[in-house]
C-alpha cells in the first residue's frame, strides 16, 4: 500500500535537530521490549529439552531494545523523513465515530446506529458538510450490508433493537 509515500510537500514542518517524535518512538520501543521481557519471566519451562515458550519473547525483546537504540540514533541525527503539517480535526472525527460504534456495540445497541454514525463522521472528516444526509446514507448502507451478511453469507452481526425489526 502506501508505504512508499514520501512526497515532500512545501510547508513541511521545520524540525529542530533532535527529533522529539523520533525519540518518543525509540522510548516506546524500549518500553515494549521491557513489557515483553517482564511477561516472559512469568512463563514456565515444562520440558528440559525444549527451549519452550520463552525463547521467542527473549529474541523479540532483545530485538526491540536494539531497534530502540537504532531509532534513538536516527532521532538524534535528525534522520527521520520530512513530515507534512497535520490536521487533527479529521483524525478526531474518524476516531470519534469508531468510539461511538464500539460503545454502542458494547452496551448492546446493535451495530446499525453506530455504523451510520461512523459513516457520517468519516464523511465529515473528508470535508462533507451534510451530516444528517450522510447519517441516512450510512443507515441505508448498514441495512443493505446487514441483509447481505446475515441472509446471503450466514454471518451474524451484533444485533440491537433496530436489527430485530428486520
Amino acid at each position, binding site marked *: *500500500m*502506501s508505504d512508499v509515500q514520501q512526497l515532500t510537500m512545501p510547508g513541511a514542518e521545520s524540525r529542530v535537530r533532535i527529533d522529539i517524535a523520533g525519540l518518543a518512538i525509540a522510548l516506546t520501543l524500549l518500553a515494549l521490549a521491557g513489557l515483553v521481557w517482564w511477561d516472559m519471566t512469568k512463563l514456565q519451562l515444562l520440558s528440559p529439552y525444549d527451549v519452550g515458550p520463552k525463547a521467542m519473547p527473549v529474541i523479540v525483546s532483545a530485538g526491540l531494545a536494539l531497534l530502540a537504540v*537504532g531509532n534513538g540514533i536516527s532521532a538524534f541525527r535528525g534522520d527521520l523523513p520530512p*513530515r507534512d503539517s497535520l490536521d487533527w480535526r479529521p483524525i478526531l472525527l474518524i476516531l470519534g465515530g469508531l468510539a461511538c460504534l464500539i460503545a454502542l456495540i458494547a452496551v448492546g445497541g446493535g451495530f446499525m446506529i453506530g455504523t451510520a454514525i461512523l459513516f457520517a463522521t468519516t464523511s465529515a472528516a473528508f470535508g462533507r458538510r451534510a451530516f444528517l444526509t450522510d447519517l441516512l446514507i450510512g443507515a441505508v448502507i448498514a441495512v443493505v450490508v446487514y441483509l447481505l451478511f446475515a441472509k446471503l453469507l450466514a454471518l451474524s452481526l*451484533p444485533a440491537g433493537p433496530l436489527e430485530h425489526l428486520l
Partner: protein
Amino acid sequence: MEAFISLAHGLSVAIVPMNLLFALIGVLLGTAVGVLPGIGPALTVALLLPITFKLDPGGSIIMFAGIYYGGMYGGSTTAILINTPGESASMATALEGNKMAKAGRGGPALATSAIGSFVAGTIATLGLTFLAPYLVDIAVSFGPEDYFALMCVAFVTVSATFGDSPVRGLTSLAIGLLLGLIGIDILSGQSRLSFGVPELYDNIEVTTLAVGLFAVGEALYVASRRHIHEEKLEAVRGSLWMTKEDWKRSWKPWLRGTAFGFPIGALPAGGAEIPTFLSYATEKRLTKHPEEFGKGAIEGVAGPEAANNAAAAGTLVPLLTLGLPTSATAAMMLAGFQQYGLNPGPLLFADQPNLVWGLIASLFIANAMLLVLNLPLVGLWVKLLAIPQPWLYAGILVFATMGTIAANPSPVELIMLTIFGVLGFLMRRFDFPIAPVVVGLILGPIAESQLRRALSISLGDPMVLMQSPISATLLIIALIALVLPFFLKGLSRFKAVED
C-alpha cells in the same frame, strides 16, 4: 510432464461451473475494489476474508485467486487515471501512465497494461506450474531447522534489505513478531502478553491487523493531509485501442518485464516494487524514444505492469510450495488458507492436489477473464473512481468494521482494529513500511514452532541450525542480507529512477 498432467487435472476442477462462477466473482470484486483509490490487493483480500469463511474452501480459494489478480489490474487503472498507486508496485506505472492519460492517451495506456498483465500473468503462471512440483520435491527434504532458516531469510529481505531504511523496516518486523507472540502458546498451553483479556488468548487475527493498518490507517492518513494533497481524475479520452506502433513498442517491454518480475517474485526477496523499477529503468535505457520518458512513454507502462503481474504470480511459488509469504498480499492469501485449516507447503500438494492444482488452473482462467472483461468494462471502473472521496472512505470504514465484527462479534475486536488503525497512521506518517508487520504476525508463530521443533529434536543444542548445510547456507544469506544495506546505502534506492 508430471506438471502437465497435474495442470490438466486442475483444469478439470477449475472448469466446473460453480468454480468458474467463483473465479468470475473474484476477478470482478478484485478489480472493483482494487480500482478504488488507496485500496491495494492486500486490503482487498483482507476485507473479503472475514465474510467468506463460511463458504466452501475450494471455491473461496479460487475466488481469492481471482481477487489477487483482479486487484492488481484494478490498481493499475487507478495508477494511470488518478496517479494514486494503491500499492508501491504500481508506482512505476503511475509515472508514465498518468502522463499518457493527461495527454489523452489513457486508452492505449490501459490497454497495454491490461494486455501486458495478461501476457506476463500467463507466462509467470506457466512458470509457477513447472517450478512448483520441482520445489515441492526439494521442500519435502527440508527439516524444521531449514524451514526456520528460510523464514529468517524472508524476514530480513521483506523488512531490511530493499526498504528505505533497514532500521525502520526491522522495527516494523519486530512489531509484527511482538503481535505474533500474543495469545496462548500451543506447545505449552501458557498465555503470553494477554493480560487476562479473553479475546487476546486466541491470537491476533491477521485480517483485523491488515484491515486496521491498511483501511483505517490509510483513511486517517489521507484525511489528515487532505488540506495539502488533492487527487485529480483524468478522463479517458480518445480511442481505447492500441495502434500498430503501440503494439510494436509494447511487446518487448512485456517480455522483459516478465523476465524481471517472475524470478524476483519467486525468490523470497520481498514484493514487486524492485522488478517494476528495474523494468522501468531498463525500458528507459533501451527505448528509441527517450524524449518521451517522463512525458508518457508507452514502454514505461508496458514493462513495469508486466513486471508487477509476473512478480505477483512469482510470489505464489514460495507461498504455495513452502508456505512462505513474501508480500503483504501473499500474507493475506496465507491467512485465507489458514482460515480453512489449510497449510500451504509440500504437504498440501500431496494431500489436496485438487485444491492446489484447481487454484493454479484458476489463475489461468482468472487471467483470461480479466483480459476479456477489463477493457470493455473500463467505463464502469472509471465510474467507481468518480465516487466522492468522503463517501468512498466512509464506505471503506463501514465495510471494514462490519467485516471485523462479523468474524468476531466483540467490541474488543473493534478496539484492536482502531489501535491498529492508529498504528498504521503513525507508520505512514513516520515512513515505516507496513508489509513487514503483517508478514511478521503471520510468519512469526510458524518460525517459532519450527525453531522449537528443531531444538527439541537436537535436545536443545542450537548448533543444529549450523549442522544442516541447507540451514547454514540460508542463515548466512540472511546475515548478508541483513548487514549489506547498512554498508551499501546506495542499494537502498531505485529512487533515482523517479527523477
